[in-house]
């Protein structure tokens, strides 16, 4: 049963943070390895190879890689289009790497955007993405309902002149809850891109939360008309402009403690460091 308090210890949070760090490090390394001519499949395989080498046992979902206009999910009609394709990376293209490694049940779910060579649209999106991270944290801390936050994010997207790309994800989600996985079955086996242990956990969560009139998925629907429940939320605002998309994804800690209701699990992440560098420049 979901509690009104965070039921992770400092030790647990530290483990989550380590997995998230590992995921981002592998994404950064893979990004540095990318060069024109590489396909999405090769990029996703490289990301997976590095994660496994780093000790990852299972995946919440398989690693994804999107290049060019696929970073903005242009022309996506069916979920199978999310899977890595034979799209070839070219000079000036944007890319997104997305992975969700699990070690000892501790799950990370990250998204890493980048570009090869010059891309002014990507630079603008990257700079503006910062506002979403600040807005979401502020609204969660103020206790707004998830669907309300979603709409405010939409309003910011409209003000910016971008479009909402997370609405293309199944269920239009901008985020979802993450728990420590305790499931049975073989590790590393996936169904429709999700680990079968993930599907068990997710299914259990969906049912138990629905009994409480809540959802572990964060969208703009009625099921999200509640403040976030204490726990870990993988938040993934994904914005696009023309044929370029960018996202970040990272864990938000919702504490249930009115003194400090929420905070990002880790601020030492590539996108945050990018913004800090921009500020200095």
């Amino acid at each position, binding site marked *: 049963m979901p509690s009104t308090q965070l039921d992770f210890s400092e030790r647990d949070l530290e483990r989550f943070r380590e997995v998230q760090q590992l995921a981002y490090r592998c994404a950064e390394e893979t990004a540095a390895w990318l060069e024109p001519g590489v396909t999405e499949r090769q990029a996703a395989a490289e990301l997976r190879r590095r994660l496994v080498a780093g000790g990852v046992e299972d995946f919440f979902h398989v690693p994804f890689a999107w290049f060019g206009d696929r970073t903005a999910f242009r022309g996506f009609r069916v979920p199978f289009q999310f899977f890595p394709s034979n799209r070839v990376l070219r000079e000036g293209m944007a890319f997104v790497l997305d992975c969700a490694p699990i070690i000892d049940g501790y799950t990370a779910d990250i998204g890493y955007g980048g570009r090869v060579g010059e891309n*002014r*649209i990507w630079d*603008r999106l990257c700079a503006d993405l910062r506002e979403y991270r600040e807005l979401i944290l502020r609204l969660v801390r103020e206790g707004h309902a998830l669907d309300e936050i979603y709409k405010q994010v939409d309003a910011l997207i*409209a003000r*910016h*002149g971008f479009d909402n790309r997370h609405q293309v994800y199944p269920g239009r989600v901008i985020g979802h809850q993450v728990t420590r996985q305790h499931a049975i079955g073989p590790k590393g086996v996936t169904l429709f891109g999700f680990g079968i242990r993930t599907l068990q956990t997710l299914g259990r969560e969906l049912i138990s939360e629905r009994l409480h009139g809540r959802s572990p998925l964060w969208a703009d629907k009625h099921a999200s008309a509640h403040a976030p429940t204490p726990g870990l939320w993988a938040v993934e605002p994904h914005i696009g*402009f*023309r044929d370029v998309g960018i996202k970040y994804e990272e864990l938000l800690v919702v504490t249930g403690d009115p003194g400090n209701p929420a905070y990002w699990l880790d601020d030492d992440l590539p996108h945050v460091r990018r913004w800090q560098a921009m500020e200095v420049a």
Partner: protein
Amino acid sequence: MSTAEPGRTEVSWIVESAGARLAVYEHGDPGNETVLLVHGYPDTHSVWDGVAALLAESFHVVTYDVRGAGRSSAPRASRDYRLDLLAADLFAVADAVCPDEPVHVVAHDWGSIQSWEAVTDPGAERRIASFTSISGPCLDHVGHQVRQRLSRPTPRNLGKLVSQLLHSWYILLFQLPLLAPAVWRLWLARRWASVLERVEGVPPTAGHPAPTLRSDAVRGIALYRANMLGRVGRGPRERSTGIPVQLIQPSGDHYVTEALTEGVERWAPRLWRRTVQAGHWVPLTHPEAVARMATEFIRHIGGEPASRTVRRARVGVRRAPFADHLVVVTGAGSGIGRETALTFAEAGAEVVASDIDKGAARRTAELVEVLGSRGYGYGLDVTDESAVRDFAGEVAARHGVPDIVVNNAGIGHGGPFMATTTKDWHRVLDVNLWGVIHGCRAFGERMVERAEGGYIVNVASMAAYLPTRDLPAYATSKAAVYMLSDCLRAELDGHAIGVSTICPGVVSTNITRTATFAGVGEAEQGRKRDRATGLYARRNYTPRRVAAEIVRAVQRGKPIVPVTPEAKVTYLLSRVSPATLRAAAKLEVS
């Protein structure tokens, strides 16, 4: 060779050249760059009076009466009017008034024909820095062109030949003995002023037609007799030039058609080509436009960055469809306006984005820059006439006269007529109708004055032709915009300014989030707004698709554009069965 004549104030110099004495007139500071203006037939230097006065503000302007005209002497034999002699005259004048620097030549009609002869003379670049040619082709080029068309007698080529022949009837008449001189002597010279006024819309001025018209016109016939058959008919020569040439084609020229200068870039590779919305006597009817075009060109040749219109005129440069175009969009802070600004930017246009929300307009301008074009954001309340006028003035001064204006700013308003207050009516009409009127007037005037064409897009709505009990004020305002655009299109057609009416239909934009509803309380307002926004969002027709239609409408000159399928179907119904729409209007939708 030359002597100053202090006794006659208006003639500055008499220049002797190849047996003729030429009357030369100077304006402006001789320390400035020299612009030499060469007149045509049957004019004198006075055809340039208006242009010369304007150019004299920044140039040393020189005009002269060509041999046989005005105060210059008139050799008797036709052979004394051969092009090589006329070209020698031009060089002689240039040498006299500006011996050390090459001059900029601006020439009209026969003046342009003889200037081509000078410009294509080997070594001419030492004496001529640039050439602006108005309505007077190189006869050798025409000769080559005629031969080429005859050698490939496709219907298109023959059609162009016949068309130009029909425009050149007088040239054939001029070849006949006696007839043309007799007509000038006995009748036409006396009636010329009124013929010009009636046929060409040229009002008589102090110096034009010149008092010497009768003799100018009769002697000038020699120009045709000495040159036409030889150059066009028998043996055209290869005449090329490296001098930069600006061709100005008057759109309504009854004598010299655009087809005559087709393919000129083969002989003049440094070529700029532009059209002025005027008749043949453009130096008289549009002196400001001629002076502006000449100045822009001369300045650019002198090393200044090219103005947008000069860049656009450059021949032989591959460019995006709207590169070197300036587009103004109102209501560009969101929705269809913002997407229209961005879509034009993607097609290469510079964009001025205005919105009542200045921050939103600036954001649009930033996005324009992100797309690799140049954007400028302005705050503007389109209901404020003087603000719109000031805005148009500021845009013209800082960025130039726009080529395309999109009057897009609009607000939504729903609710029955009986619940719609006078205040509601004023608000809706002020933005949706008056905003468009102010925009069309402030920018339309400038486009007409510039005389280089343009385009106005008015964003109306499917509600313009779809009656409904739910949107009386909104639909009325949009129907008015629709009719206004139809009337304006007719008026501006003669100025080559197109007008499109866009009727979008149900499109997911900000308009539903800011719409108001008559006869309901605050809470209900919000509920209705949310419901409308939800409905429009589910319809999921994006403003970007509307913007693409707007750009296409401008490219193809489409008068009326219903955009979404529902807008198209109801447009058709409004034509074939308006009674159906009237019946449907009774249904309560919201």
